[in-house]
């Protein structure tokens, strides 16, 4: 390929040119806006250089919501394309790119940052800590993820998007069958974001192990923190596998090795195995924090303590263990023999047991509870039946012999959307609504929130339930069109209608954020939901130092017992508080990583070498940097604490 041909889009269409213009105009508008309103220094000081876990959480949230809409537009395009038989809205290549980017964006660049948004914001507060263990690394994690996401997103205007599916199976993703740079984008951008995630995993494990408030034993941690701990443990063990897998893929594509090729001894099945050794635990990286969020919400709004706390902890630990033993069920039909299939079939179905325990625990928490149907609780209650459908169809797919019948059909698509949407998206929306007042100091409108919930819940079912039928009828997934004689037309049209309702639901959610930002009352207490865990024991929004005095914990629900049984929570006097300084380094180094990734994608070796050196120079600079942080004085803390009605032990 000629030098400049690599940068051109291999299959241009008017939509892509329109997107190019739109991206250009948006970037110019943002730059001009920032200059006109003189916000550059504010942006740099308060956000780009921040090391505050709460602000990093909010930035993760914004990025996740943006990516949700990008992935959502991909989804709408797919549903529109298959709405009627023999449709020509998209061509085959464009459709391949759309389903590939939809998968990658939704899993890696939407769901992952969403869980890290909530973890970042909530976990240090729930354990009564000032920040995470390594605040700067935390900022680095965010910016690496962000730059990875941006790199992935420019793929469809520079050089072409990946088109080999989000699993990017070789040899399809190899140079022979994917000649554009699309798969390079996939390999490098996920690599960069993945390094960020791995750093987060280490950071959060250390934080949760070492920085819990005095008295908070492991078995006294709130459920969300437990799930965060186990999730990050899975991250630390699974992400290095992804790192190596992507590295080997990059070696194959850029340096001509023969690891996943069909010639010279390469083994394409190795990619499938390595990918899913990471990919299956990834499912639980996404869903375990969701289980944690549901546990918090169910107990708050049933006004009861969580039923079966110990069995909940045991089940997440068992799930995390089993998650590493099931990866082969993703390719039962690729010829690995009956014995292997049987073993993986059994381990797969075994996961239903601990998951079932959790479902029953939530139901038993609600039993005899005084349930309040708030928006977070609606998502939680909605989740249970929908997720159960996803679970049951999962067991159907887990039976290797039956899987031969419906593998790679729309049945599979329906199944995993039935687990991931209630299991992750519902949970994130529930968690978002639940913790919103803690993040921003006002509540989201319950009325508009309920509209959004019903539109999303109904739209979701209308979109995905028909796929169970078309799938069992034999409609293959990833097919960009089908003929009229197949009879899939009516159900696919119904799916498209559902997708539109779903899209309207998300639009209502955005409207809710806009409406509540403008009109909601700022005069809320620090504990508007009458909740049970420590994060509600400080102000909303939370001051930079989180807690003026360290909380002392002696039960699972320390804050609840503090409120109801008058157990003292904060002891001692206010002391000066040590805080880390802001730093521009995480942002700068991540920007260099962006250029580094871009250079590798297009095999531009000189900038690749220069940026590699620059990255190590930044690390060296950081190593020599002297930075001991600063102190917030007692006077300042008292000043902040004065105008709040946060309950101190004296006036309670």
């Amino acid at each position, binding site marked *: 390929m000629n030098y400049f041909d690599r940068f051109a889009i291999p299959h241009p269409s008017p939509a892509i040119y329109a997107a190019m213009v739109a991206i250009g105009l948006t970037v110019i508008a943002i730059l001009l806006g920032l200059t006109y309103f003189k916000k550059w220094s504010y942006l740099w000081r308060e956000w780009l250089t921040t090391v505050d876990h709460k602000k990093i959480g909010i930035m993760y949230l914004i990025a996740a919501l943006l990516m949700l809409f990008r992935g959502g537009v991909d989804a709408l395009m797919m549903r529109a394309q298959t709405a009627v038989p023999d449709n020509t809205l998209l061509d085959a290549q464009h459709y391949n790119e759309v389903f590939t980017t939809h998968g990658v964006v939704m899993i890696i660049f939407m769901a992952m940052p969403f869980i890290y948004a909530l973890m970042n914001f909530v976990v240090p507060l729930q354990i009564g800590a000032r920040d995470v263990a390594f605040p700067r690394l935390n900022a680095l994690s965010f910016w690496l993820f962000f730059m990875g996401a941006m790199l992935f997103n420019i793929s469809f205007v520079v050089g072409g998007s990946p088109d080999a599916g989000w699993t990017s199976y070789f040899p399809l993703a190899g140079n022979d069958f994917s000649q554009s740079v699309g798969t390079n984008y996939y390999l490098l951008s996920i690599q960069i974001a993945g390094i960020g995630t791995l750093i987060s995993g280490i950071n959060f494990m250390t934080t949760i192990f070492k920085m819990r408030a005095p008295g908070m034993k492991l078995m006294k941690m709130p459920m969300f923190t437990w799930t965060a701990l186990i999730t990050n443990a899975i991250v630390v063990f699974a992400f290095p*596998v992804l790192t190596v897998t992507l590295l080997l893929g990059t070696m194959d594509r850029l340096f001509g090795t023969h690891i996943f090729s069909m*010639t010279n001894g390469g083994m394409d099945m190795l990619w499938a195995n390595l990918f899913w050794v990471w990919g299956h635990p990834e499912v639980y990286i996404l869903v375990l924090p969701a289980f944690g969020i549901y546990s918090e919400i169910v107990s708050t709004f049933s006004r009861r303590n969580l039923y079966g706390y110990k069995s909940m902890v045991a089940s997440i630990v068992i799930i995390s263990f089993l998650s590493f033993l099931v990866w082969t069920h993703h390719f039962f039909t690729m010829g690995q023999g009956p014995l292997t299939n049987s073993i993986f079939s059994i381990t797969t179905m075994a996961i239903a047991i601990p998951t079932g325990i959790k479902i029953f625990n939530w139901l038993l928490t609600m039993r005899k509870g005084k349930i309040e149907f708030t928006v977070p609780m609606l998502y939680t209650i909605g989740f249970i039946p929908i997720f159960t459908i996803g679970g049951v169809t999962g067991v159907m797919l887990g039976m290797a012999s039956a899987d031969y019948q419906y593998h790679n059909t729309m049945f599979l698509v329906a199944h995993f959307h039935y687990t991931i949407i209630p299991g992750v998206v519902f949970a994130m929306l529930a968690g978002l609504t639940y913790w919103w007042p803690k993040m921003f100091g006002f509540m989201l409108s319950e009325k508009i929130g309920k509209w959004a919930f019903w539109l999303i819940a109904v739209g979701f079912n209308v979109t995905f339930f028909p796929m169970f039928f078309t799938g069992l009828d034999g409609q293959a997934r990833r097919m960009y069109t089908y003929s009229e004689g197949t009879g899939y037309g009516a159900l696919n049209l119904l799916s498209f209608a559902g997708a539109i309702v779903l899209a309207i639901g998300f639009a209502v959610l955005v409207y809710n954020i806009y409406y509540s930002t403008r009109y909601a009352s700022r005069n809320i207490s620090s504990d508007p939901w009458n909740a049970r865990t420590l994060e509600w024991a400080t102000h909303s929004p939370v001051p930079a130092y989180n807690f003026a005095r360290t909380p002392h914990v002696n039960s699972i629900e320390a804050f609840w017992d503090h409120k109801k049984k008058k157990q003292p929570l904060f002891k001692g006097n206010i002391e000066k508080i040590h805080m880390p300084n802001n730093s521009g380094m995480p942002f700068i180094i991540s920007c260099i990583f962006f250029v580094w990734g871009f250079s590798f994608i297009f095999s531009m070796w000189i900038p690749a070498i220069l940026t590699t050196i620059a990255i190590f120079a930044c690390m060296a600079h950081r190593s020599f940097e002297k930075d001991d942080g600063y102190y917030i004085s007692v006077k300042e803390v008292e000043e902040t604490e004065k105008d709040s009605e946060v309950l101190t032990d004296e006036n309670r």
Partner: protein
Amino acid sequence: MKIDNSLPLEYKTEQNKLNILGFWIFIGAEVMLFATLFATYFTLEHRTADGPTGAEIFEITPVLIETILLLTSSFIIGLGVHAMRLGRKNAMMTFFAITLLLGLAFLGVEIYEFTHYVNVGAGLQVSAFTGILLTTLGTHGAHVTLGLFWGLFIILQVKKQGLTPKTANKAFIFSLYWHFLDVVWIFIFSFIYLKGMM
């Protein structure tokens, strides 16, 4: 900053303890990284296509030299940490410097080894086996290279700032990293070279 004088320098502050635990977790991740590479290597070990096999290209002499260099360096850095705990700054710096020199020598032999492989027709692109062999060795080698710079910066910092809880903490964590590279090498030596030559 609270300082607990009953502990060695590198464990003295709260942040030091966090750094050390965090680094152990990082080593856990590194174990997974190398385990994945090894698993891939064992899968592709005999898939040599028309290229050479391990038995044909492996030479025991450079590998033994590399092993001795790296194992000795790991022992010396242990002496360095011991000197650090006794508060002997110059001895510590000397031991660290020897460690890095041994590391540099290791890297030199490894570079010789790589050129040898390319010369005997076992380059990166020859077969699945050569590809994964050079990638696995290269990943370890890249870790050693990074370690050389890292260790150098630590020596410079100890020289400038003396033995403080901060520099001691950095030096101790670096020693963990260096020992880890040694452990990985033992696996490479046993399961790539010795097994390959049998």
